[in-house]
């Protein structure tokens, strides 16, 4: 690893988090002062209890303070350093301090003396890839130095060296053994106070989440907005067809061919969605982790087409289904995947029943079955197909499928293919469900009144648009009484819900054996792809023979399987039980924190905290938020169609929501746009403690995914987010939401709070039961 490379990856820093490992991994630091002409390394500085103090925040980052003078909280930056002295030191220390990914191997003088444990987490960090991950910052050496400053000051600011070094062993993922993690992918959040356990009181029915209704004014103006949009759309179509027939050619029949998509069918797409097309399908690059790099694009023709500008923006990613933060390019899981690629190659070249069945599939299936608590499991190579090909394999004409009205499209697809009779009930309404069951059982099949052969109730564990959890205790009670078979789609809840991350059964303390079929996907919490079906052995064997995807579709690629095995093993703590450990392939060598489950637990607790914090915080700020507070999906209601694109754009380009006076400051500074971006870069260590204004990518969803009026923005929190990231999101929402007048709610029991109050009292909010005034 050449030196020049190592110098160019400043933000990909590792944090050694246990006291012990600090000591272990710092022989470099200890020895470096003895080398003539070398200044003490960063670690040594910290160890000595560094920083003696004098600098104002403006010296740390002059531009940032100018812009954020309002938010910049002085007490987060109490640390200060002798600028000239430290500056020189940092440049030197950067070369060999153990915080840098690149410092871990290569030509820097201290490397030989580093213990091997320093890098076992990721022995193979590809320099090229790191470089491109961080290339935004590489271009700006000057600014980087300032960031290193800030890194130093912020660390020192936590009350000196001991706090920085005496972090609990699990504070930063698998870093205890020196594994390299990127702050840009998985945030550094050592404070153990910011943890929570996702759990429901055993046996009790799940209360309905409090969902505030918007005022009549809001509803009315929303409808009027849509009427306007529709009328204008039709007017444009009417005049356009006559004035510019060329651009409508594909919508009308020509040469005896009917239009591929009629203008009526595509009206919504062309006239409503097209107005905000810049908010969808934004191209990205790199890992979709805590942050994501979007490729900037502009449109010259009102979003008919886009042109990439070539610039990139690193934004805080609060929209990926990366619940446990396993979307990582480095760390124990990624290393196992690399090993797998070397051993197995990329594909298996066949279907499960068509000579594409690897030993790895069998191992992964056993592990999945063990994880969810069923006898056996079957893995399908696509989450969507898991539902759409399994339901036809178990249901047939004569079966009644009862389905929640908000069930995912794949469930509807599968149910339609099965030929079974389908009935829907109102979302999560257990009374309606019971009434429907009574009606269906007593009436039997339509016309003949024969009893149904079997009844299959399909529910989702966590609804992806609503953020609501299924009322499983109540469903189980009904199941006892009405003897239906239960199919739970845990696409979003597996890994994300429950004290052990094992889905809704875990959350409610219900024995998974009582549920016939547990389905889930690996796309979300496990950072992989594909899905599984788990159940009794006889059932799964039947599904293996009759599931369309198992017979015909390609199997899940071996590297993806390895990601599943590694991430799942680390959530389970597979190393603790010999029986579970034996399920892992012998070549999968995971670092200790992954193996013993300490990191998995940490991730679950971080996720649970973040979810409750964001959900409660937004409620307290006065937004209407749907769903249960333990859900990592937090839908914030927007209502008015025009606010959707505005919200999305303002969150991405935070300049837009600044008051004009402050915007001028940024515009008139000599900084290039890249420098301006670097100041608020969410991956920068300089922004670890200071209130920053990072660009945030959000997902706005509207009709047809939601009812017409309740368009919303959907946040998906992750264990990779730090508490401070959630602070930033809350600040951004507060700012943009106030500007757009989106605070339709009352703030729940106890009334609204302002954003500083929310951030200050985050622990109270997370502990809050949601009912008593606070």
């Amino acid at each position, binding site marked *: 690893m050449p030196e020049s490379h190592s110098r160019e990856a400043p933000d990909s820093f590792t944090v050694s988090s246990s006291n012990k490992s600090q000591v272990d991994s710092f022989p470099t630091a200890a020895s470096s002062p003895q080398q003539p002409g070398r200044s003490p390394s960063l670690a040594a500085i910290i160890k000595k209890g560094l920083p003696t103090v004098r600098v104002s925040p403006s010296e740390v980052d002059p531009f940032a303070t100018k812009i954020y003078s309002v938010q910049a909280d002085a007490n987060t930056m109490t640390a200060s350093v002798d600028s000239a002295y430290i500056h020189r030191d940092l440049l030197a220390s950067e070369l060999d301090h153990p915080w840098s990914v690149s410092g871990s191997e290569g030509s820097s003088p201290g490397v030989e003396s580093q213990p091997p444990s320093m890098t076992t987490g990721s022995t193979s960090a590809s320099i090229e890839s790191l470089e491109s991950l961080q290339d935004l910052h590489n271009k700006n050496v000057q600014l980087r130095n300032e960031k290193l400053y800030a890194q130093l000051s912020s660390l020192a600011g936590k009350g000196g060296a001991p706090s920085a070094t005496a972090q609990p062993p699990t504070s930063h993922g698998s870093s205890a053994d020196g594994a390299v993690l990127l702050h840009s992918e998985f945030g550094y959040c050592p404070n153990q106070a910011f943890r929570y356990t996702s759990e429901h009181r055993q046996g009790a029915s799940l209360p309905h989440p409090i969902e505030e209704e918007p005022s009549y004014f809001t509803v009315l103006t929303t409808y009027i907005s849509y009427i306007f949009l529709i009328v204008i759309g039709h007017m444009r179509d009417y005049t356009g067809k006559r004035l510019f027939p060329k651009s409508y050619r594909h919508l009308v029949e020509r040469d005896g061919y009917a239009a591929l998509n009629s203008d009526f069918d595509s009206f919504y797409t062309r006239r409503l969605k097209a107005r905000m097309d810049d908010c969808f399908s934004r191209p990205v690059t790199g890992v979709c982790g805590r942050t994501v790099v979007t490729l900037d694009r502009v449109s010259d023709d009102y979003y008919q087409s886009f042109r990439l500008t070539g610039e990139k923006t690193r934004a805080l990613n609060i929209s990926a289904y990366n619940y446990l933060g396993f979307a990582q390019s480095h760390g124990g899981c990624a290393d196992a995947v690399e090993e797998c690629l070397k051993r197995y190659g990329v594909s298996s070249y066949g279907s499960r029943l068509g000579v594409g069945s690897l030993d790895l599939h069998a191992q992964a299936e056993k592990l999945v079955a063990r994880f969810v608590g069923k006898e056996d499991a079957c893995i399908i190579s696509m989450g969507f197909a898991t539902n759409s090909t399994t339901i036809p394999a178990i249901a047939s004409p004569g079966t009644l499928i009862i389905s929640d009205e908000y069930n995912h499209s*794949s469930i509807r697809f599968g149910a339609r293919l099965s030929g079974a009779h389908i009935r829907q009930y109102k979302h999560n309404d257990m009374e309606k469900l019971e009434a429907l069951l009574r009606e269906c059982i007593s009436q039997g099949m339509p016309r003949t009144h024969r009893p149904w052969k079997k009844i299959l109730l399909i529910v989702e564990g966590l609804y992806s648009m609503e953020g609501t959890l299924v009322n499983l205790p109540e469903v189980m009670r009904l199941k006892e009484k009405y003897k239906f078979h239960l199919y739970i789609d845990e696409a979003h809840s597996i890994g994300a819900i429950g004290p052990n991350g094992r889905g809704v059964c875990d959350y409610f303390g219900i024995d998974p054996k009582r549920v016939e079929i547990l389905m889930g996907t690996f796309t979300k919490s496990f950072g992989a792809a594909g899905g599984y079906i788990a159940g009794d052995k006889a059932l799964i064997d039947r599904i293996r023979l009759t599931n369309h995807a198992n017979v015909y579709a*390609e199997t899940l690629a071996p590297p993806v399987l390895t990601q599943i095995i590694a991430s799942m093993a680390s959530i389970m703590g597979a190393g603790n039980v010999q029986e579970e450990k034996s399920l892992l392939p012998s070549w999968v060598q995971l670092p200790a924190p992954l193996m013993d489950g300490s990191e998995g637990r940490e991730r679950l607790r971080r996720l649970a905290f973040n979810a409750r914090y964001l959900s409660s915080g937004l409620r307290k700020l006065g937004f209407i938020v749907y769903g249960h507070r333990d859900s990592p999906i937090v839908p914030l209601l927007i209502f008015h169609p025009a606010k959707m694109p505005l919200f999305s754009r303002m969150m991405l380009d935070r300049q837009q929501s600044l008051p004009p006076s402050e915007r001028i400051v940024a515009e008139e500074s000599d900084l290039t746009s890249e420098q301006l971006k670097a100041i608020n870069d969410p991956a920068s260590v300089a922004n670890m403690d200071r209130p920053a204004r990072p660009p945030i990518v959000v997902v706005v969803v509207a009709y047809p995914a939601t009812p017409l009026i309740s368009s919303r923005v959907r946040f998906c929190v992750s264990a990779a987010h730090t508490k401070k990231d959630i602070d930033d999101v809350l600040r951004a929402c507060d700012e943009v939401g106030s500007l757009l007048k989106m605070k339709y709610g009352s703030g729940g029991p106890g009334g609204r709070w302002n954003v500083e109050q929310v951030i200050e009292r985050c622990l109270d909010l997370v502990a809050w039961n949601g009912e008593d005034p606070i």
Partner: protein
Amino acid sequence: MEASPNPSSSPLASALSHLVDPLLHHFQRIPGSAIILRYVRSSYQDDPIRSLLELFLFVFALRTLLQSRTRGNQSGSNFVKLSEKEIDELVSEFTPDPLCAPLTPAESRELASVPTIIGGVSSRPKISLPTHHAGKPIQVTNLASYNFTNLAGSDSIKEKAILALRKYGVGSCSPPGFYGTIDVHVQLEEDIARFIGTDSCIIYSQAFSTISSVIPAFSKRGDIIVADRGVNFAIQKGIQISRSTVYWYDHNDMDSLEAVLETVKRDEKRRRGPLTRRFIVTEGIFESDGAIVDLPKVQELKRKYKFRLILDESISFGTIGATGRGLTELYGIPAKEVDMIVGSMANTLGGGGGFCAGSEEVAFHQRINGTAFVFSAALPAMLAVASSAAIGTMISEPSMFTTLQENVKALRSVLDHVESLRISSDPRSPLVHIQIRSKSERHPDTPLEKFERGKSSLGVGDVSLAVRPQQRPMVGSMGHDLGVDEQNRLLQSIVDDCLEHGVLLLRTKRLGSINPKLLETGPEARPNIRVAVSTAFTKKEIEKAANIIKASTIRMLGKRR
């Protein structure tokens, strides 16, 4: 409106007006009520029938509005009203079937006959099978995996995948519509479109789900699909979910296609409805029997009858044509003239996922209407990178396709002369399907008198029982003298025997089609063994493997002709 005052002098009326007055007072406080009142009054004076009609209409509209749309059975005339007690009894009496029946011994055997590959797919993998040597791994010659161009052995693709891992991680964690469109996806779409020669392309995250999502994205209820009887299962599911009107034509029979198109034309004319979308759906190389479609003829018919063509190139893409560009290259037809080409990145490219190539309009439409595209997470970046790398390899080494054809020829030169077999595949297809020849079909090599003698003998192998010609046994289906189970049993014994001699084959596993009466009648639906030829082997090795298959066949089927 009911509250409109009626001038009358009877005491009943005065009592009524006493009751109505406060209501009227409240009514008058509603803004605009005066206008309604005036309107009702004047209309009643002019035309009492009209206001009665209007009242009736109003009540009807109110009733329609309030009536739940999802009441389903309850509103039907077939609804039986039951008391709560009766319902409780019915509920307690309800005894549902178990979710599924346990496997029969035959089904368990079927499941147990699936080999497990130990440690990665290659041309000579180690496999383990519980029925062979108690699961001890054995090394075999792999003629079963879709590893046509031997990309499974490519180290450069592995390296690129590792680089992708270190840059992108594994999962995409988002659907493409949100933040799951990674630059490598865009790159792969461009690569495929350029490779095939279309304007645009869209990638799905599973090949199987691609076509069953493409078809319903375009063909809706009321549209017309004309499809081959032999299309694969995924297409059948796509047709089923689209709820379009389907016409089937005989497998790979262009005359039948023309006849069906003519029928459609006639029906359309008679119906005189609005113009609907019309599609021909067929495959390049058929997954079920390896036949190759006569694309120029289909193109000609499609233009003549104004149909669009959806062509599934899952097998043919990356295997045939001088440089592997598929059927369009084989026949020298510009790919742009085929409306939608659907293919797989899992079979030949060794990545994962599927694609649909076509015009900009076709691709764009699916970005919002392709169910499996919109509602699924994007393909893992690493698989997209591997597919892009595979296309790069194909472009730089086009000679691999000549080798592949030579290997196919070498295999066919041996197997074509086994008289007890019927090879349904096209001579160019790298996927060679072996069926058991029916007694009623003569192999070109079989002398006529032997064929006549064989036709009237019952049984397999050495057992040959002469029967009179008029009692010709036709116990089987699909025009075969053997039943499906019997054919499967014999084919499986050939597969097992080949495995004993170190050659891995696959007896194709099938699920019931969507319309067995129509689709499982032709010879294309017969059970078969699938041989996937690969460039990983030399001509000698292929010939050796072919001879093993031949020997096994003769051992198992005997002198059957």
